[in-house]
Structure formats: structure tokens, C-alpha cells
């Protein structure tokens, strides 16, 4: 008995030692792997024809962008048999972290890298190269019974900061307002706060937070007096789309720059992309994809935008 006990202790001890070694090596191996991947994908095929590309691409990040990247990756892999593209979700923060640490080739994000990688991580953001592949516009929506068609910026700010709590104060029915929000770390919320409200808001007691657009839509459609915001591709008759300062949130208004609540979908690479990744990103921006897959999935083609916006949010006419 005594012998066995000491044996188990020895086992546990060795495992702890092995583990601490792993802890130190963990990061190294991860970066090494990334390096190897990059090296593998870097191997030139000594051919000018695009269909002779071979290698693999790993992309991760934004779940809002994931369906588009997946669909485009499918058709890209059909055209280039040697290329293998894997697209993972995980959220914008995950995508940016992993691409900054070279664990993946492409990091998908709903927001500019500079907005997520701040302070101590600001250096990491500088190494990342931005590729804007699509635009997503976000509209304020309410429960159909709220009785309001349009809200001004100030009214929206008052609602989301809790100053206005009843729809009758903005010309609607006598019904308490229920906010259906996104979590404070969400890219969609950041876009809505930056460009529709112009200010950050704090979570209010009693407000609801959901992280998937489907659930947000369901809750706004079912909850009396609910208000929230959704990407244009999610809008339908179960919720009421609100005009913003009198401007209808439509694709045309976004393209012409009249409707301001939109953001780019980014695909970040660490440094300039290698041959394969570049070919994929170029394919992403071709008219075939931009007017096909991008529009089909409810995004707005980035190359059609008549205005552009930088990290600070300054909008310029193209």
C-alpha cells in the first residue's frame, strides 16, 4: 500500500514537471506551427497560372463574416484543386488575436484591428494588413406595435442611455421601451454606438443582451415595446425597421453615404499576404464574388461604396 501511494505521488509530480515544461513551450510551438504553415503556403509553385496554386489557408474570427468567407472559399477551392481553405468562427477578438500571433493566415473582424488591439497590444495591430471585403449596414428596429417610423439621433441616444423609457415620448404608443442590446464587447454594438449614437453607452439595469442576430430578431418581434438593432440582411416583417434621422436604411443609401450606420468587414493578414492568401483575397474582391456571393448573403459590396471611412471614423467621398 505504502509503495503504491508513493508511486502515484511520483506520477503526479512528473506530470506537473512535464506540464510546466509544456506551459513554457506552448507558445513557441504555436508560433512555430504558424511559421511552418506560412512557409508551406509560401512555397512558390513556379507557375503564373492561378489554378496551379497549392497549399492551405486557415482563417478564423468574426461569425458575422464567416458564412461569406466559407462560401467564397468553397468556390475558390473548386477552381484551385491544390488549395485547402479552412474557415473557423470564434469572434472578432479571437480572429485578431490569432492572426497577430500567426496562428492563422487570415483574421476576420467586424471592427478595425486598432479598436480591439489597444494599449499593450497596439504594436500587434500595426503589423496587420487590412483587407476590406464587404460592408455591413445596421438598422435600428423595433417591435411593430411601438408605433414609430423614424427616430432622430438624439432620440436614439436618449433611449439607449435610459432617458426616454416610454414610446409615447417619441410619438409612439403608450408602451414601456425594452432595450434588446448586444454585449458590450460585440462588434455590431460598437458599430451602432459609433455611427448611430456617436457615444458609448453603458448597460442599463433590466436591458437584455443577446449575442446572435437570430435571437435578437426573435426577441424584438415577440417582446412588446422592444427596440434593438440588426444587420440589413436580417430585416423582415416580424420587426419594424426605423428610419434614422429620416433616412431609410437601404443598400442604396448606404452606398451613396446618406445612411451612416455601417462598418467594413475586415480580413486581416499579418504582414503582406503570401501568394496563396493574396490570390484568395484578390478573388474575394473580384466583381464575380462582390456582385454574387456578397450580395446573395446580404452584405454590401465594398468596391461599390461611394464613400470610404478610416479608423477614426472620418468619411470621405471616393
Amino acid at each position: 500500500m505504502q509503495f503504491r501511494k508513493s508511486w502515484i505521488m511520483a506520477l503526479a509530480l512528473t506530470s506537473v514537471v512535464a506540464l510546466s515544461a509544456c506551459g513554457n513551450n506552448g507558445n513557441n510551438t504555436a508560433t512555430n506551427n504558424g511559421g511552418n504553415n506560412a512557409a508551406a503556403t509560401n512555397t512558390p509553385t513556379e507557375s503564373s497560372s492561378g489554378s496551379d496554386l497549392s497549399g492551405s489557408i486557415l482563417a478564423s474570427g468574426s461569425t458575422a463574416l464567416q458564412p461569406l468567407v466559407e462560401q467564397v472559399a468553397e468556390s475558390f477551392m473548386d477552381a484551385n484543386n491544390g488549395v485547402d481553405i479552412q474557415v473557423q468562427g470564434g469572434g472578432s477578438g479571437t480572429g485578431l488575436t490569432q492572426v497577430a500571433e500567426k496562428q492563422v493566415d487570415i483574421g476576420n473582424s467586424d471592427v478595425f484591428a486598432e479598436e480591439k488591439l489597444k494599449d499593450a497590444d497596439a504594436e500587434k495591430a500595426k503589423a496587420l494588413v487590412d483587407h476590406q471585403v464587404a460592408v455591413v449596414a445596421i438598422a435600428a428596429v423595433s417591435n411593430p406595435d411601438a408605433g414609430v417610423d423614424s427616430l432622430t439621433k438624439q432620440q436614439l441616444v436618449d433611449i439607449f442611455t435610459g432617458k426616454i423609457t416610454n414610446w409615447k415620448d417619441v410619438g409612439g404608443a403608450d408602451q414601456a421601451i425594452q432595450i434588446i442590446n448586444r454585449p458590450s464587447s460585440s462588434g455590431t454594438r460598437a458599430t451602432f454606438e459609433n455611427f448611430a449614437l456617436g457615444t458609448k453607452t453603458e448597460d442599463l439595469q433590466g436591458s437584455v443582451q443577446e449575442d446572435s442576430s437570430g435571437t435578437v430578431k426573435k426577441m424584438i418581434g415577440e417582446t412588446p415595446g422592444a427596440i434593438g438593432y440588426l444587420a440589413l440582411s436580417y430585416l423582415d416583417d416580424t420587426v419594424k425597421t426605423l428610419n434614422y434621422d429620416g433616412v431609410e436604411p437601404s443598400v442604396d443609401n448606404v452606398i451613396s453615404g446618406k445612411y451612416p450606420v455601417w462598418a467594413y468587414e475586415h480580413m486581416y493578414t499579418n504582414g503582406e499576404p503570401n501568394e496563396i492568401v493574396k490570390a484568395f483575397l484578390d478573388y474575394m474582391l473580384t466583381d464575380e464574388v462582390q456582385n454574387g456571393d456578397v450580395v446573395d448573403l446580404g452584405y454590401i459590396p465594398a468596391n461599390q461604396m461611394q464613400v470610404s471611412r478610416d479608423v477614426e471614423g472620418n468619411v470621405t467621398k471616393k
Partner: protein
Amino acid sequence: MRVKPKKTRIEKHHIEDFLGRIYMSFCVLLLIVIIVSMVYFVASKGIANFVSGEMKVSDFLFGSKWAPEADTPSYGALPFITGSFLVTLLAALIASPLSICAALFMTEIVPGWGKKLLQPVIELLSGIPSVVYGFVGLSVIVPFLRNTFPGQGIGVAAGALVLSVMILPTITSVAADALASLPQNLKESSFALGATRWQTISRVILPTTLPAIMTGVVLGMARAFGEALAVQMVIGNAPFVPRSLFESASTLTSVITLSMGNTTMGSPQNNALWSMALVLMLMTFIFVLLVRMLERRNKI
């Protein structure tokens, strides 16, 4: 003459025995490595913010303001800790009586068809994925609560109701096993003394099996405490200590699943989420300890 039997001693079953032992030791070692590395990983991430001075332990555990994106971020986890405890205790309060009655029904009242009917149903219940529970909660329980009580239906009450259904099978099966393993002569002597079935159940069976049943309750609570998805869908996720059972609230698990993917690894907010994961893990340890203590008491 002596050499011969020694040689024939290494037979096939000795080799099998040896290989089996090696394999078992490997599995045990692997298990230990996995557990230790998980504890190490969560703990090292979880204490990062305290080490760097980004937040204080007291501010984290007892601070009620969660505003990680604000200009001066504050990482108070009290709303989430209270939310987790509230839904867990409520769910156990709702589920325990139901489960114990179901177990009594299966073992004492109608051991024949009662068991045949209930056993598969309860096993089925434990096999349903949590997202299904969450969706049913969102589509059935939340509208029901909204129409019956003041408020929007979402909140601690909805979360506790969904969880109580989820932990029902855990408590029921543990309680049923405990009741079935009760020595027959205890019941027989009770009946022989002229006790009715109700008197036997309430005075003899339940008191003797109580520690074992409590084990089931604690196991159920451990599951409720760690459940993320179903709760997140119905609780509303506002980072506040709720003022009523029908107001949007959060749990430790729901805030982790909501924000983990949106934050970058190593940022203070991400580390704060890991600290909550550490709290969750410590709570699990406490639940396990409780179960061990109850099991010790359980020896009749």
C-alpha cells in the same frame, strides 16, 4: 528440475496482465496531466489581472459594476456571481421535490411499470442538448412568464425553470439508485410494526437515504452552475444584480460565452473573464467536496 517450471511461468495471461497494467497507468497519467494542466491554465489566466494590478480581488468579487469597455473600466463580478447562485439554488429548489417524488414513484409506489415507463423518459431528458432546452425556454417559458408576471419574461425565473428541467434527470437517477439500494429488511420491519406506506416512506426510507439524495441534489446543482447556453438564451444577460426574478440578469457562464470570443486574448477584459472561469472552477471543487462529505455520511 527447478528451472523448468520457472520458464513455463511466463504465459499469455501474464503478458496481457502486464500490457493491461501499462495501458491503465498511461490512462491515469494522461488524466492527471489533463486535469493539472487545465487547472494550471485557468488559474494562470485567472490571476493575471490581479498580478498586474488591473483589478483587486475585493473589487472583483464584491464590485457590482461591470463596465469593461468604459473609459475607466471596472470589473465587478458580483452581478454574475449572485446570478449564478440564484438560478442554481432556485433550480435545485424546484427540481429536488419533483425528482425525489419521481424516484419514490419508481422504486416504492409502482416498482413495476412505473420504473419501466419513467426510466427511459428520464434518460431521454438527460440526453437532450442544452441548446434545445434554451430554445424551448425562449419560445415557451419566456412568453408564458411575460404574460403571467410583470416584466419581460426573461430573467432569473426563466433561467431557473429551464435549469430545473435539465437537472431533473441527474437528481432522479441518483435518488432512485439510493432508494433501490436501501436494505429490504428496514422496510419490512417498518411494515411489520404496523406502519402505513406513507409512514414508512416519510419516517424510514427518506431519513435513511437523505445523504444519498442530497448527493444527487448537489450533483444537479453542479450541473446547473456550469450550464451556459440554455441559461444565456433566457436570462437576458444584463450585468446587474436583479431587483426581481423577472428582470434581466447574468450568470458567470453566460457572460463568459457572450464575451470570450469578442475579446482579444490577454486583454484585461479577457483576463477578467478567465477570473470568472476560475471562480466557476473553484465552485465545482466545492461541489465535489460536498459530494464526498455526503458520501462519507451515507455509509449506513
